[in-house]
């Protein structure tokens, strides 16, 4: 069994408390970080090959490096805890079971990028995680770990915990920023990117919860150790959320070099009831679907990319042979139609249209042209929108139909 890093305390009672976090070595990374120069931390994070674990997989240190040098005004750190990608639930575990890991990671990251105000944007439905995390922030303030002159370092950091109000699009980093600013969660045009002009017009770094939770460990044990846990292009472990038709659904922390097959069959206990595997969503709802014979792939960003899909948010949804793929597509298409923010035309119009077609097929009123229309509309819309939301929807639209076309055709023929 590989070493657990992020989830190492999850089984301990009181894992969410400062006392236990400290007893298990917490806030040691912070002491090390404060002994370093901010630029050295960014350099260390770059060397660690830590990549964004929210979905896009962008190298974290490189992202930090996009901030303007010597910016005269404020710089903000925003933690994306708007977990919403269907099939993903890891950040909820981190917020509830190890909130101080996130706080420590935030202090170090803020110190590295020169931010003195950080926001944690938690999805509105996450009431318990919000309460637990809020208490941890209060504890940290009381212990002098947040606020002015943290642990005598001379570094100040305030944290504002902000709750969302129900919109998947706020997980998109610029949609999140709009929402944080008190507006609809409409993603912003890029350029400018948030690192240049983000929240409240200031340079802003938006990072996922899990990504930032890794930072104290990188400080503690070094970039080389972290990089060594993963593949050539991605360091460390990551938390895989496994759900659907598996014996033991849950969160599994594995080195990113593990395979999808081992995750499903060894860790999650395989398919219950002796049924056969039909398909797997490997990286959250927006990832291209893999068939049963496409699961011998490593789970790192590049491994899944080479398999024609994506690591995304590492939400793995397992479907056994009983699943109707057209029905699954209808459910997924309903989700994208419901969550499209409506800002730009291709996404606003085609998510609703594709859902109508998918529903009609499932209802037995499909027309033979429908499948090619869905494929064509998805392809034509791809790459034309303000944000990556629609491109995310295109993954399932195309792969469900292309890989299981016979199931759709059977429904249409009926």
């Amino acid at each position, binding site marked *: 069994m590989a070493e657990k890093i992020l989830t190492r305390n999850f089984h301990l009672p009181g894992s969410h408390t400062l006392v236990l976090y400290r007893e298990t070595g917490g806030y040691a990374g912070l002491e090390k970080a404060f002994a370093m120069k901010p630029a050295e931390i960014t350099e260390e994070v770059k060397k660690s090959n830590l990549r964004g674990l929210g979905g896009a997989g962008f190298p974290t240190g490189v992202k930090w490096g996009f901030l303007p040098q010597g910016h005269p005004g404020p710089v903000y750190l925003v933690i994306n805890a708007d977990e919403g990608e269907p099939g993903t639930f890891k950040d909820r575990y981190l917020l509830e079971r190890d909130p101080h890991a996130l706080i420590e990671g935030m202090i170090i990251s803020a110190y590295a990028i020169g931010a003195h105000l950080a926001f944690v944007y938690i999805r509105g439905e996450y009431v318990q995680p919000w309460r637990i995390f809020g208490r941890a922030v209060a504890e940290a303030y009381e212990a002098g770990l947040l606020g002015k002159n943290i642990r005598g370092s001379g570094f100040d950091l305030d944290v504002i915990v902000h709750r969302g109000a129900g919109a998947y699009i706020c997980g998109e980093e610029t949609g999140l920023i709009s929402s944080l600013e008190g507006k609809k969660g409409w993603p912003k045009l890029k350029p400018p990117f948030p690192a240049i002009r983000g929240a409240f017009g200031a340079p802003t770094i938006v990072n996922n919860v899990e990504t930032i939770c890794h930072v104290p460990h990188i400080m503690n044990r070094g970039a080389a150790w972290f990089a060594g846990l993963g593949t050539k292009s991605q360091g460390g472990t990551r938390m895989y959320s496994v759900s659907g038709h598996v014996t033991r659904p849950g969160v599994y922390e594995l080195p990113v070099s593990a395979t999808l097959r081992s995750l499903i069959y060894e860790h999650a206990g395989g398919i219950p009831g002796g049924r056969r595997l039909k398909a797997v969503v490997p990286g959250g709802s927006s990832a291209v679907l893999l068939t049963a014979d496409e699961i011998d792939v490593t789970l790192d960003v590049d491994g899944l990319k080479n398999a024609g899909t994506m690591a995304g948010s590492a939400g793995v949804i397992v479907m056994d042979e009983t699943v109707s793929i057209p029905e699954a597509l209808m459910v997924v298409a309903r989700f994208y139609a419901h969550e499209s*923010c409506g*800002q*730009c035309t291709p996404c606003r*119009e085609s998510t609703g249209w594709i859902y109508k077609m998918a529903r009609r097929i499932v209802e037995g009123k499909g027309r033979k042209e429908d499948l090619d229309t869905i494929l064509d509309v998805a392809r034509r819309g791809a790459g034309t929108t303000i944000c990556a939301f629609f491109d995310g929807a295109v993954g399932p639209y195309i792969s469900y139909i292309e890989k299981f076309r016979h199931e759709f055709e059977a429904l249409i023929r009926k």
Partner: protein
Amino acid sequence: MVRLTIDGKEIEVAEGTNIIEAARRLGIEVPHYCYHPGLSVAGQCRLCMVELGNNPRPQIGCNTQVAEGMVVRTDTPKVLEVRQSIMEFHLINHPLDCPVCDQAGECWLQIYYMKHGLYEPRMVDEKVHKPKAVPLGPHVMLDAERCILCSRCVRFCDEVTGTGELGIFDRGDRSEIGLFPGRELANPYSANVIDICPVGALTDRDFRFAVRVWYLDTAKSICPGCSRGCNIDVHYNIRRPHHNQGRRVARLKPRFNAEVNRWWICDAGRYGYRFVDDPSRLGAPARGRGDAAQEVGWEEIIPLVTAQLRRYRPDEIGVVASPKMANEDFFLLRRLVDHLGLIHVDFRVPPRTPGDEDRILIKADKNPNTRGAELIGLGPRPGGLDARGMLRAARDRRIKCLWVFHHDLQASAWPAAEVGDALRAVECFIYQGSNSNGVSAAAHYVLPSAAWVERDGTFTNFEGRVQRFWKAVEPLGLSLADWEILGRLGAALGLGPEPASAEACFKALAASAAPFAGLSYRELRDTGKVLSA
């Protein structure tokens, strides 16, 4: 300056220019809906995609600023395919009700679909339904199903007027433009949202179903509603006279002038044209008061009026010109006043209620040519009376002949009794104007003027910008442009032949009045010139 290449043509433009504007300079149109040069960039319609260098993914032109050495293509197969796709997306939930849509003929969905459409409708499912024919305010009607959610109207109310009445509510394909329930869109510039709406979602309650736009002709003009002098287009219908209840002027639209009004006009100006085709228009010269009034021809009235002007001593005649008249009119009037040696001349009559003013366009002075009247010297003269003084002198029978242009003195700030007394007492009251009003019935002689859309001319706005307006339609009935009436009177008074045109008057003005020296109609072009003095 930045050099770049668009479709193989090189161009140099200012830093910060976007690709749509740079291409426009080369005569290349990059189709777009949400982009508007007067508003922030929204990037929502996704139609203005272009290819940049070797980037395989087309980018939107509105949010891409030019860069040195940039290579832009607006005509590649990829770009054309994207446009076609985006057009399809814009139309799948659109009702396609062109036959009953008032925007038909000037709708950018129609225009771009002709060029970039898929011509293969594939949408067979039930469209999203939204509110239709919703009055948003006194001027604007909304059809939310036709709306393509470009957000121009929302941005206009946020960024130009700062009133924020409009929003986009809900999300996904249920997104919908609207007002906060119970509120209305009634800011002084509300109808501009109709102009910037690229489709039939926002239509003009005043204009809708009046005339099909393809029957309209256009003349460049200047709004006469205040001293700003907003540049406008007059849209008039003479091809289908049975439409629009015979009214010739169908609507006014703003005409871009970077220095005056940019893309906008106020609602008061936009809807202030109704007097042109109003039953109150004076259609023929007339002599005699009340029951004795009778319409006559110009051949008859000109000698009668000149006889009156000669009959009185110069200090017994009062002239109240109007700041609604054109510079050309002022020039001829001034010449005539000087020729007769009149001393009581003015043009200012204060309104009963002071005009409203704001920091956008609207000026408190509701006259288009106060500055022109001042510069051409129609204000009170040393030793002469001002307009109110003339009224009092008329009451006291010291002034015996009063010549009033356009003003409705009964609607002025002066007491009605004072005006009434003066007009009753005066021996000869000449009224020259386009419409009958509270004082015209009291006139012994009525000289009917053409409305501003029925003639050429120039106004000088509050900052001294001289701007041309062009004739759109023929003068109603026997009415004539003020300069023409004054030219005929002048000829009859021995001032030489009447000028052949408004341009000839302006030429003579430029030759004689220092502030206008060196100007000509050609020099003024479409957007006017600020006087140096």
